[in-house]
């Protein structure tokens, strides 16, 4: 859209501001570029245009009547008015019709606070209803999956129908009946079990489609939001982590045209409860003289860990959800001592979203497998050979679930085992020399590299439990004590060090990555970068 050499540019005036946009852009998108939001319901940049809600009617000079801004393309010299008497009156009329059958149940509606019907009614709707007949009533329906349908609140914008039909290409939803009896129907015998179906809840401008998982949990205005990256798979969808009282209550997609456009899948969306788990390792622990792990202060624990690792060959068993920064610092330990780094990653079925190029629930169900590979780690295929006087650093692999016995045996062969993690792994706890508590990705800052080699930042959204410290901080302290790095004060400094050491990351900084990330330089050479089409208009 911002490409200035390609398409012919058109200049027009919207609300007195001059917009220069490519030919073929709709008025609604052109208005966004100059900071004017035209009220709309059925229009969504990620969906085909329907023009059914008539909410985006604007006054275009020398047009015989009002034009829908979503379906009217810009023309040279056009003058658009959004807030003329005529346009406002039309939109107030549209709102009055929408509110005829809309219940006044904002107090119990989960969408309240982030509802476009609420916002626009407040902005330009009528204060009182003139409708005196009884309102239409339909019972609540379970759409399957995570979706619940409250037909009374529905304004029939058809965003959900278009998403399932055109983007997910699983046309389960339709508009049934007609006139004032119309509602969103579900194909007989089908449920919204598509792994991308949860997006209809985000797309719904009102509270008609609700997440069963989030139902009645919190109000929209109580939530604190911060930008993050989904750890569900190696796609690296941009997300917003929403917390209430330091507890993650839901994840929402955050738009990034180069990665996930506006969407995220159910696997990532609903996999957040582990973030809130209470059985965290929250104090540093050191094995004392009696052979018992006991709580120590940070200085003592770091000294003990450094003493255990110093002079030994260090092998690292890393989590594929560790940040680039943590993997790099742990990698310095193994690189300088000649050790080997491995990581385990769960595999699942790939589930693409047909309507968006290169967006899929990836088989590799961890956020940073690619980052780990670029930084010199290998996927665990064969059991690593560990000599009797080698050290093993376990970086946040909880060793829960299905762990090959050979791996546990290999770890046990190490002379010393140091764990840097969010939990105390029960299977190796009796063997640990030192356990250092770190924060998970919602409690620290860092970067992940997705499967196309795009480096993306995530920010902190909650506070750390107990004495846990960010992973880059703990590993920077540890590596400094061992004597392989020095002087890291922020994650940005660690990242700068990565970009100076690893050619793949060269010339990247936190400031440049911003919140949408950048691909690593030799991504194409590594065969990681599939052809991506830059965002839609």
């Amino acid at each position: 859209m911002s490409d200035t050499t390609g398409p012919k540019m058109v200049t027009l005036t919207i609300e007195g501001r001059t917009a220069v946009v490519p030919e073929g852009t709709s008025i609604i998108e052109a208005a966004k570029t100059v900071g004017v939001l035209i009220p709309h319901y059925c229009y969504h940049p990620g969906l085909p245009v329907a023009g059914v809600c008539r909410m985006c009617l604007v006054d275009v000079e020398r047009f015989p009547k009002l034009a829908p801004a979503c379906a009217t393309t810009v023309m040279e010299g056009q003058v658009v008015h959004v807030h003329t008497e005529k346009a406002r009156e039309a939109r107030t009329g549209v709102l009055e019709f929408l509110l005829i059958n809309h219940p006044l149940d904002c107090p119990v509606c989960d969408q309240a606070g982030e509802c476009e019907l609420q916002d626009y009614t407040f902005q330009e709707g009528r204060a009182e209803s003139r409708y005196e007949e009884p309102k239409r009533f339909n019972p609540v329906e379970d759409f399957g999956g995570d979706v619940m349908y409250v037909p009374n609140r529905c304004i029939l914008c058809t965003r959900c129908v278009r998403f399932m039909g055109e983007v997910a290409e699983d046309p389960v939803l339709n508009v049934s009946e007609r006139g004032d009896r119309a509602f969103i129907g579900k194909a007989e015998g089908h449920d919204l079990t598509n792994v991308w179906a949860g997006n209809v809840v985000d797309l719904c401008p009102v509270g008609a489609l609700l997440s069963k998982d989030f139902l009645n949990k919190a109000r929209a205005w109580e939530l604190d939001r911060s930008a993050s990256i989904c750890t569900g798979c190696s796609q690296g969808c941009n997300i917003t982590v929403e917390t209430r009282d330091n507890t993650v209550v839901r994840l929402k997609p955050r738009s990034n045209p180069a990665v996930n456009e506006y969407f995220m899948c159910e696997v990532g969306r609903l996999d957040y409860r582990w973030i809130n788990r209470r059985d965290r390792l929250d104090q540093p622990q050191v094995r004392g003289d009696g052979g018992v792990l006991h709580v120590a202060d940070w200085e003592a624990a770091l000294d003990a860990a450094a003493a255990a690792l110093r002079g030994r060959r260090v092998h690292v068993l890393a989590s594929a959800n560790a940040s680039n920064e943590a993997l790099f610092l742990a990698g310095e330990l193994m690189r300088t001592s000649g050790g080997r780094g491995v990581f385990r990653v769960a595999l699942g079925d790939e589930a693409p979203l047909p309507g968006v190029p290169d967006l899929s629930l990836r088989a590799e169900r961890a956020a940073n497998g690619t980052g780990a590979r670029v930084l010199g780690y290998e996927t665990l295929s064969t059991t690593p050979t560990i000599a009797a006087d080698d050290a093993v650093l376990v970086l946040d692999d909880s060793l829960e679930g299905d762990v090959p016995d050979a791996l546990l045996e290999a770890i046990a062969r190490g002379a010393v085992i140091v764990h840097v993690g969010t939990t105390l792994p029960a299977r190796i706890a009796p063997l640990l020399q030192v356990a250092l508590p770190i924060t998970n990705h919602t409690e620290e800052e860092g970067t992940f590299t997705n499967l196309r080699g795009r480096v993306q930042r995530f920010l902190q959204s909650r506070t750390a439990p107990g004495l846990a410290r960010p992973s880059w901080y703990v590993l920077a302290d540890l590596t400094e004590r061992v004597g392989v790095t020095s002087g890291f004060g922020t994650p940005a400094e660690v990242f700068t060090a990565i970009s100076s050491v690893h050619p793949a990351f060269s010339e990247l900084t936190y400031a440049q990555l911003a919140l949408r990330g950048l691909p690593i330089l030799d991504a194409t050479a590594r065969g990681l970068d599939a052809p991506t089409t830059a965002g839609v208009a």
Partner: protein
Amino acid sequence: MAIRVTVVERPIEHVSYIRSTLSGLMTTFKHMVDPHKVTMQYPEERWELSPRWRGTHRMLTTESGKAKCVACGLCPTVCPANCIKLVPGEDEEGNRFPLLFEIDEFRCIFCGYCQEVCPEEAIHLGRHYENAEFSREAFIYDLERLTAQTHPVSELWDPADPKSE
């Protein structure tokens, strides 16, 4: 150092107490016969409170005795003293209902915003003033306590003259 006292000679009409004693007694006798009374015999007698009096809270209930609150979250949002704690959830029938609703009456400034904002007319300020308790904890009113209160509730404004004109 010896204290030197100077005795000032004053005219008799300045130092005589007879006249002022008599005028004081006159006031006393006047009040004995005057019907106007100021002292109230509390607790046998009490003030009649204004309909707009704002005292400690009360939660109104439905016919079935359940709190009317739907846990919409408007009162904790509007509360300027941040004294309302609300955790929303669902009741047995799946309706929105507060799992936890607590008002810290120590923190409360009795502004009445919670009553004004409540879309269900559930939370009200009470028309009473006798709030004494034996412990500080008892001033954190939970949902059970709030629904058990029986005193009349505040009107916030005079129904006959809502704009105070």
